[in-house]
């Protein structure tokens, strides 16, 4: 039986929880896959190598730099799950600030804290085979990816935009119809257009799509009521590193 390992780095646990949220599939999955290491769910910890590793969280400490490399060596296929593992997550806001100052704000004794100045994705350290985007990841994408790896096909992870998901689902465009600012045109698909379905503009939690047209979108965000600082903040949140790189590339 193929073996599966689940690993945590700096994160909220939400993406690995997504596996436990597969209530209808979990027991069936466990008949097809040996869940060899999954500290949040099991006290039985098996050594490697593992056929598939799911990696949640970002790398933020010197020991985690070593750990991600060890996990890579032990893993046939390494799948980074969620915005922390694919982009450094919201904690990557430290990359643009003074981490010593951050530490002094939160902790009375900064000298007790050992942390790197940056929060980085798994791909900054090792080769990553697949990335599931999202803060958090989408349950259906996780199941499809595991099923794909089990039967030996490539996972379906289209680098389309949230806009395409709205169109396919027949969701009325919140920007066109109501002038609601929405990041759908530049945001990676995968959530199923959740926010527009709920009368909310997309806020980019799946990060940028492969070729986002930032210069075309930003004037529309201003038109629909977002100030310059508001535009900056919405991009500088859950996928700050990736959106900032896209904006810098275009000097928008």
């Amino acid at each position, binding site marked *: 039986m193929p073996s599966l390992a689940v690993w945590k780095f700096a994160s909220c646990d*939400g993406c690995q929880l997504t596996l436990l949220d597969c*209530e209808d599939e*979990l027991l069936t999955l466990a008949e097809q896959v040996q*869940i060899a290491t999954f500290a*949040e769910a099991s006290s*039985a910890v098996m050594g490697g190598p593992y056929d598939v590793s799911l990696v949640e969280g970002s790398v933020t400490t010197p020991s985690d730099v070593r750990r991600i490399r060890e996990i890579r060596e032990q893993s046939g296929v390494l799948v980074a799950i969620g915005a922390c593992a694919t982009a450094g997550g919201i904690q990557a806001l430290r990359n643009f600030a003074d981490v010593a100052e951050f530490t002094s*704000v939160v902790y009375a004794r900064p000298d007790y804290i050992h942390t790197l100045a940056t929060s980085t994705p798994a791909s900054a350290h090792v080769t990553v085979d697949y990335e599931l985007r999202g803060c958090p990841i989408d349950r259906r994408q996780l199941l499809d990816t595991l099923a794909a790896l089990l039967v030996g096909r490539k996972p379906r992870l289209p680098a389309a935009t949230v806009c395409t998901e709205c169109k396919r689902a027949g969701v009325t465009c919140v920007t066109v119809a109501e002038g609601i600012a929405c990041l759908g045109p530049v945001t990676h698909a995968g959530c199923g257009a959740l926010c527009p379905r709920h009368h909310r503009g997309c806020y980019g939690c799946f990060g940028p799509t492969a070729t986002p047209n930032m210069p075309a979108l930003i004037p529309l965000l201003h038109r629909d009521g977002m100030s310059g600082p508001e535009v900056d903040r919405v991009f500088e949140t859950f996928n700050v590193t990736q959106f900032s790189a896209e904006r810098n590339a275009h000097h928008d």
Partner: protein
Amino acid sequence: MTDPRTIRVGALTRVEGEGALHVELRNGVPERVELNIYEPPRFFEAFLRGRAHTEPPDITARICGICPVAYQTSAMNAIEDACGVTVDPQVVALRRLLYCGEWIHSHALHIYMLHAPDFLGEPDVIAVAKHHRAAVERGLALKKAGNRLMELVGGRSIHPINVRLGGFYSVPTKSELKPMAEQLRAALDDALATVAWVAGFEFPDLTVDHELLALTGERYPIEDGRIARSAGNPFPIAEFSDHVRETHVPHSTALHSTLDGERHLTGPLARYSLNYALLSSVAREAATAAGLGEQCRNPFRSIIVRAVEVVYAVDEALRIIDDYERPARPFVDVPARAGVGHGVSEAPRGLLYHRYEIGADGLITAAVIVPPTAQNQAAIEDDLTRVVAAGVDLDDAELTSMCERAIRNHDPCISCATHFLTLTVERR
């Protein structure tokens, strides 16, 4: 058994997040008991500064994937307090409904997947399912009902997207809630069966005397409330930081808290013991049938208390759906105003406090977040001391197992306090 001796065990499992435990015994007496929390810090309180007053519900949700609604709700309570805005009662009811979903899902996760394996001598829920398939399927169905409720009201179960300051982006119609009520009626049967199931487990003896801290109010406390405690005088929410003080100890990246200088406990045991009279009759009857009194001071029996709270949350969700009238407006505007606001709610793991300072420009200038697990750390360490003292005659494997169980009793959310646990027992 030799003395002195040292035992080292790997990472603590079946908790949310990761961390370490350090216990030293000299001549059979526990000498040093530390819950080491060194999961890498994520600095939320630092990067909340300079964000708009509308952002903390989305941002602080990301502190914890298991209880995001707790973070969203305490954040909204605090900011709405700072801005002097009162939210419509029907919107508050929807918040409570969403929060019921989180209690059902989070408690079912802990009961079936994290805690029950301890009582059944199994490593995980998959192994439990080999001998107790029907029970595990019931637990999964119950958990799923909680998740579906969160998806219906919040749009997504992990980091709900439909929540905003002042209310919701969209609100369901009464008819959209109807199928959910059907699922919840089945969940109520599952919840009652869960109480009966866990009541049959064997519980080690342990009685703790921590001061209890929880919210209370007109109803069993979930989405808001006022302070209740077992010994000292209650205090206004705005004085929370005067009473619950955070200190930084070398062995932890979480801040330890004390209540008026003493250790205290928040969470299901505290909530239940301080609010028994507010439980619905079906929840109270289930508690009585399970052998619980009006208070519960044995942390090993917290699994029963959680099961009773699931009954309450399902029953309460059904009541809210039954009384539901679609709000005339999904949210009220919350214009920023300079000032300070305090907000609380009852996360599945206990009282969660937020405080924000907002500047005249509507940007946050300071944020304080006190999660339940940081508050409970001293109480957990005290439980460990008692369990180790009572278990010195156990062999190493058994004693280690008891230590792990003493920690799991409190369902610590290490991601919330941002921590990491490796278990070491040293005997000298």
